[in-house]
């Protein structure tokens, strides 16, 4: 250590003696740096076997958008070991990168191969990665499933994590149907009541589903309603009757708030579609699809621009569905929207959830579409059932989001392209982030079509009065 030191600051010369200073005399940042160095040393020693060079951590911490920054402001880089742990501002970060490279090249012994090995080792042991979106956590598949998890829930979890069932409506429907299975197979244990024990039983199943994929607002609202019903079950009711009653409420919830609501929405949205209209929609929403198909069946003639984006390319499926029905469609990717937006008469989008401040949480890319439409003074209509309304207020798309899976699970690339040339995995110097949702602010939305009426986005809070319920 200290054999080659690209001269950075005068403090650099104190590097070799740093280890001999007591920890008390170092600043907090220097202590942190020492700790990082020791950690990287250990990793390098582990990775490169026993190369005997204990101080050869050639760690270049991933220089992503947000890096762990300490309060250190001085130019101490610790790059004698090629480390650039605490970059403070751009200038020093760049300098440290250069020094890191320089350090690597001029390192004696070991050679570049060992450097790369320890480099990769340290990178792979750094679980934090890029800071942005790091609070969403990593997806991990749960194991074989503990004995408590009902097989229907296990299968549903697999379908969720494999992205075979996607979309807010679809996931809520699938969850409710799986819960019907669970309730029908449930028996109350001794010395317990159905209303209390079933709640705990269901909570275990719910946490298994959440581990597979974070819960959607629709699932949350439906489960909350179900739990309300369960707690209200009469204690004297025989078990089979109680179970049938619960399944009945699940059925009526599906019927009222999803199926019938969709029909009403399709009808109301159809009023906004006139002959000769050019409509634009983004990705694939089950409600918008139903509305368009119904308007076509009523005999209106219109054409649709389907805007789509990777990685999911859901618009392709919508394109298939609409073209099969005979609607003239045009398909384009999101970056091309600027060329067609001027000709559009109305934009229809779906939603994952609506927030109390009127913001729409929807597939990533929707915000762009609505912003473009707003700029060109084109009305943006959101089709959304009332059970998607969430009590929370959301102001940006960073606090609550979900990262999509990496490994090419959507298989949207043609087979003729060799898989190695696609960026489907994290490699050195590249980390892939796929946020699945984004937030459209209320100022970009013209109207929200729900089953209780067509309302402006700012009056979402009044819906529960219209529905006559205590909670939505």
């Amino acid at each position, binding site marked *: 250590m200290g054999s080659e030191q690209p001269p950075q600051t005068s403090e650099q010369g104190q590097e070799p003696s740093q280890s001999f200073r007591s920890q008390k005399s170092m600043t907090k940042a220097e202590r942190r740096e020492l700790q990082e160095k020791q950690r990287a040393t250990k990793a390098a020693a582990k990775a490169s076997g026993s190369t005997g060079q204990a101080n050869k951590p050639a760690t270049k911490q991933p220089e992503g958008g947000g890096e762990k920054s300490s309060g250190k402001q001085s130019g101490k880089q610790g790059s004698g070991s090629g480390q650039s742990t605490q970059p403070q501002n751009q200038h020093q970060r760049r300098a440290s990168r250069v020094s890191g490279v320089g350090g690597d090249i001029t390192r004696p012994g070991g050679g570049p191969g060992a450097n790369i090995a320890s480099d990769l080792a340290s990178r792979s042991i750094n679980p934090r990665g890029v800071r942005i979106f790091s609070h969403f956590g990593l997806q991990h598949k749960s*194991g*074989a*499933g503990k*004995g*408590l*998890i*009902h*097989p*229907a829930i*296990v*299968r*549903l979890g*697999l*379908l969720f994590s*494999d*992205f*075979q*069932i*996607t*979309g807010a*409506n*679809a*996931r809520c*429907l*699938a969850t409710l*149907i*799986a819960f*019907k*299975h669970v309730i029908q*197979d*449930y*028996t109350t*244990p*001794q*010395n317990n009541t159905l209303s209390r024990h079933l709640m705990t*039983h269901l909570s275990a199943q719910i946490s298994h589903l959440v581990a597979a994929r974070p819960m959607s607002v629709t699932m949350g609202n439906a489960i909350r309603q179900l739990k309300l019903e369960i707690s209200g079950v009469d204690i004297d009711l025989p078990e089979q009757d109680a179970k049938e009653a619960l399944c009945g409420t699940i059925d009526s919830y599906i019927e009222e708030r999803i199926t019938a609501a969709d029909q009403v929405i399709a009808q109301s949205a159809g009023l906004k579609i006139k002959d000769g209209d050019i409509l634009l929609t983004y*990705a*694939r*929403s*089950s409600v918008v699809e139903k509305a368009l198909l119904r308007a076509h069946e009523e005999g209106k003639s219109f054409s649709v621009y389907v805007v789509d984006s990777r990685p*999911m390319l*859901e618009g392709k*499926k919508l394109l*298939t*569905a609409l073209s*099969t029905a005979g609607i003239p469609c045009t398909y384009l990717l999101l970056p091309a929207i600027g060329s067609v937006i001027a000709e559009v008469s109305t934009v229809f989008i779906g939603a994952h959830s609506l927030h109390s401040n009127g913001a729409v949480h929807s597939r990533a890319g929707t915000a762009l579409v609505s912003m473009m439409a707003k700029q060109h003074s084109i009305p943006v209509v959101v089709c959304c059932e009332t059970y998607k309304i969430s009590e929370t207020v959301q102001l940006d798309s960073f606090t609550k989001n979900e990262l999509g899976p990496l490994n090419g699970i*959507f*298989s949207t690339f043609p087979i003729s392209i060799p898989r190695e040339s696609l960026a489907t995995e994290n490699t050195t110097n590249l980390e892939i982030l796929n946020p699945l949702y984004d937030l459209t602010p209320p100022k970009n939305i013209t109207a929200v079509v729900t089953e209780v009426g067509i309302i402006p986005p700012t009056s979402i809070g009044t819906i529960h009065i219209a529905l006559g319920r205590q909670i939505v």
Partner: protein
Amino acid sequence: MDFFEDPEDVVKSEFIAVVLAGFGRELQPLTSNHGDEPCPKALLPIGNKPMIDYILAWLEPSGVTDVLLVCPTSHRRSIADHVRSDASASFPSLRIDLQTYGDPQDSSFGTGSILRTFAHRIDRDFVVLPCDFIPPPSLQLLTVLNKFRMESAASGSILTSTWYEAPSQPDKNAGDEWGPHTPLTSIVWDEKTGSLLQVEIPNSLNRNDEEIELKMSLLSMHPRLKLTNRLQDSNVLVCHRSVLELLQKKRKLESLSKGFLPWLCKINHCRSKKEAYKTLLQPYRKMPTLANALKHSTLNEPNTINYKEEDDGKITTNHGPNTRVGLITHKAGDGIAARMNNLYDYLEVNRRFLEQAAQNQAGPPAKGPLIDSKAQISADSSIGQSTRVEERASVKKSVIGRHCVIGKMTKIVGCVILDHCIIEDGAKLEGCILGGSTKVGAKAELSKCVTQAGFEVDTGGNYRNAKLEISDWTTAGAYDDEESDEDEEFEAESEDD
């Protein structure tokens, strides 16, 4: 007092494993009786661990707890002893239920018939496992189970099979000394959806082996197909319980892999045939399915068939009940899988096990106390406990069982020697499989032989490419002639004249 009920009972476990320990006819004479005692195929060791242990170890982490182990009546005691012995303390979570099926020696009890017999014990979805499949370490049973779970929930498919790529084709020049190699099966499959579309059984009666027939309905449903004969069936099948009902209906299908599976693939794209079995496949009408949810899913393939009314007023919607057979393939590059169907595979797998063990070990294996220091044992051999190896014996690339005695100056190359064998001085063994308690006399030379348990090779005997069986003392020579007439390959019998 509050007795807390066992939470495991609240939810019934999802799968039951059915392990079929067959007779092992193809592995004769290894599996022939040793005197009066049978040598079950399931207990033949691979690298000194019985075959069945590998399957049970594979089951252990997958979350399947109930195991129904089916074996012939004559093998019941040996297998029961093994299962309840200390060796099986390594499977604490498995509850093994041993059942037997009565067998005359040579009745054709196919796997299908066995399932029919025990259908009353199988009340949920089940996994069929053969006892002779060695799973590769990179393939977990959980993967196969998950694929079945997903397909069963999403599209109602009722069976998932597992196929593995055989590591290499048997050399054309490889000897036929022990009987024919397993013939290759051609299958047609779709890689994108992972479904098995057609299975061609070789040597079946009403087929021309040089042609493969593909129906147009199959091609229109799956325009991208793969036809291969490099994949072999592992006989690991995950089935929905309605498979049992289908089996009851088709009593003529004896074997699961050679009869039922091809039939199921065939009717999958023939809608009229499927209608006949519709009631069997959808008995649980009241249970809600995920079909509605899937229709709402944004990544769901929309139905591209325009709904038109048929002439008789019925609207065609779906392709009828779903009998899609899922398929999991395992590439050879990810790890070697094998089935112990015949003697060549048995030898081969043992050899591969030795290679892996040699890789895992750093240096030469620790020598047991009874092994003479002057014996030359190569690093890629495996010697069982309490085996005595005398000086100047040379052992290379071989697996030697427990309690054996290897005499002086013996040369053992590429052999598999089971327990309790005695090999006297100066013997030379090459590429042989010796059954338990075989005695090889001094200075005997055996090359590529298989011996039955308890066989005795006389001093100076010289056998090549032979299956050595103990002939019955009491019968006359006529019986022996009959036997050799039946079998097509050359058999050498030992007769002390």
